[in-house]
């Protein structure tokens, strides 16, 4: 099943955009900034551009090798495997959190009486099915879905035109820049930095030039939609965005055009499903791929179901309320994730460069 997939640059774009929108559509990014959350998003994205450059450099340095292969090359078989296992733990936690977030959302606004475990099982199993079918199917799916998500975000914003109050944005500049930077940091790690998982997938999709083009524009589309949503939420809900659990959902509930076009929140929750599904599937896929590569297996297909069982358990047990979840996302997760998104990548890069230098010198000695 592996090897070169016929995935186009546009599909890479869609995949990245959907991945970034994934769970971040659900929560309001930079919520703690209230009316300045858009500044947090922009700060996070600017910081991400540095990360992007780093990832691009790594891709170009050793084309045709995955993140796991690079780690082994940089640190040797022993230490490399340890680091790779750390990465797998990170992917696993990320996957459980994504699944957990979605189940929490469905359980608190749509299917209240349904037992949580049931939703977790179905969400994970559908993701498992897609993973079994391979990356190509996920990429094709996201190509269609990114269009849906993008259009809905814009249309819904237009439908809210009469609820928009631009004075909510004042004052434009925050008093507390430290909080903006702090919030920008957590936005860097969630969702932008999470694209680090694509480093373990990209080598299958083609040359670094083609892939990183999709990567870059995908993240631009992602940040654009996030900004539109953040600005709309602030304009509609004002300072209440700070206190709402799902601000986007809350603002869309207010759509009321002549008592005729109302209750559009269903569309939005459908969007959440799409984006969250793509995100869960992508993380899931790279988790399986990583396991396969580390343990030198031939295929990963037989790993899919056992992992599903673990994910279901972990997602079910990790958070009891969605507020706890948000707390984790802001207070704990960034410091945990930055190790994998920046520090280890940087270490790998430096080691590879040193080894390259040494390797180049050796013949001359």
């Amino acid at each position, binding site marked *: 099943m592996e090897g070169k997939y016929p995935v186009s640059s546009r599909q890479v774009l869609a995949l990245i955009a959907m991945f970034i929108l994934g769970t971040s559509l659900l929560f309001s990014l930079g919520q703690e900034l209230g009316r300045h959350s858009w500044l947090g998003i922009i700060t996070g994205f600017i910081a991400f551009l540095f990360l992007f450059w780093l990832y691009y450099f790594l891709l170009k340095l050793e084309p045709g090798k995955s993140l796991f292969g690079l780690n082994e090359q940089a640190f040797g078989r022993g230490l490399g495997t340890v680091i790779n296992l750390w990465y797998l733990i990170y992917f696993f936690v990320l996957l459980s959190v994504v699944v957990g977030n979605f189940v929490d959302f469905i359980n608190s606004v749509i299917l209240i009486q349904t037992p949580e475990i049931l939703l977790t099982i179905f969400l994970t199993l559908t993701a498992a099915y897609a993973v079994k079918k391979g990356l190509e199917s996920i990429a094709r799916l996201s190509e269609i879905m990114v269009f849906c998500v993008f259009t809905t975000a814009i249309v819904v914003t237009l439908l809210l035109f009469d609820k928009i109050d631009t004075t909510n944005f004042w004052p434009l500049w925050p008093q507390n820049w430290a909080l903006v930077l702090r919030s920008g940091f957590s936005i860097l790690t969630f969702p932008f930095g999470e694209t680090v998982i694509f480093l373990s997938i990209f080598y299958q999709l083609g040359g670094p030039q083609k892939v990183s083009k999709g990567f870059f524009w995908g993240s631009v589309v992602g940040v654009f939609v996030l900004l539109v949503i953040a600005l709309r939420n602030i304009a509609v809900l004002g300072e*209440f965005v700070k206190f709402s659990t799902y601000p986007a959902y809350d603002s869309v509930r*207010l759509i009321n055009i002549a008592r005729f076009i109302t209750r559009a929140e269903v569309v939005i929750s459908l969007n959440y499903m799409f984006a969250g599904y793509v995100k869960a599937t992508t993380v899931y896929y790279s988790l399986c791929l990583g396991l396969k590569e580390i343990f030198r297996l031939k295929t990963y297909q037989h790993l899919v179901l056992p992992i599903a069982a673990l994910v279901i358990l972990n997602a079910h047990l990790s958070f009891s309320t969605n507020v706890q979840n948000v707390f984790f996302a802001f207070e704990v997760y960034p410091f945990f994730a930055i190790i994998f998104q920046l520090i280890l990548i940087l270490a790998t890069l430096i080691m590879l460069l040193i080894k390259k230098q040494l390797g180049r010198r050796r013949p001359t000695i």
Partner: protein
Amino acid sequence: MKKFNLLLMATLLLATSCYDRREINHLEIVAGIGFDLSNDNQIEVSFQILNAGALGKNASGGLEPYWILQSKGKTTFDAIRKATYTSPNKLFFSHNQVIIISEDLAKQGIRGIMDLWLRDEEPREDTKMTICEGKAIDILKTKLPHGLIPAYEIVNMIEASIVAAYAPIITPIDHRRLTAANIPCTVFGKIVKTSETELEYKGGALVKDDKLVDYLTETETRGYLWLKCKIKDGLIIAKTKDSNIVITLEIIRAKSGFKPVLTKNGQLTFRARADITGRLGEFEDSKSIVDPTAWPGFIEALQETVKEEMRAAIAKATYNNLDFLGLNDSVRKYLPKTFKQLASSWEEIMPLIPFTFEINIQIIGVGMVKKSF
């Protein structure tokens, strides 16, 4: 294997997710809710519930189109759930149109109601809310001469109030938005039962934090609406000073509001402004009007009326330290530096901040009559 999979999928289609579905005949659809304070200090809720059997084309005659249910409990949610003691089915709130809170309860505090309305996923955040004089259940029991369901008529009445612009329209999400912006007072609309078959929606009720503290007169409410740019329609009635002619101006378009500014010598002032475009609606003088603006004191009289209304609201807001206009918030928005300096002594300074007014009235027509008799 493939066949088995297909079979599995087909079975899944049969087992779609309606296991906790709620059919319409097992729902009691609530059209309006009233909250009262019971004699033993509990929350008493009255529901106006649609009577599905009496609505629709082949309705059986003789049935009332709605019925009223009452229950009480320690908290709002408790009271609502206890409705099932007497109701045949569980109540359904997504189609609730209006929330009426009685004076007594509002004086005790409405935090529970406001919280429940946003925390629970079933009720809508954009339901209209009002505070009533007397008991809320009496309002719901009013037999209005028009319409089938009083709650729907009340909502229509609230929405129609835009035309006269004498009362604000508030929903739970509006209230939450204001409180989130640290505006201490919210102006709710006020509904009064004037007779057995008549309700009146005008004026405002001031809720500070979560308690009703005062009522606004008509003029004060109007001033509030001007300063908050909520008047889009309505009339301005004025009397010219010298000639004592009563003029009625019909508002076609209006844009109004206020903004804090720092004058050159560093004095904080509020600049209230209104740009009104209107049409002569009524004119009680027999002379023909060619150009209304040329009449002595014509525009001035109208401006004076608007100013008076604004002044009334400002006086109320600053004198009792009930900042329902959001003066504090506007300083925070537009002059963040000044806000920081004044934050500690704001309450003493607020009544002293001067207001300047700029009312522009443009008259674009005199109607279909050239000359009155």
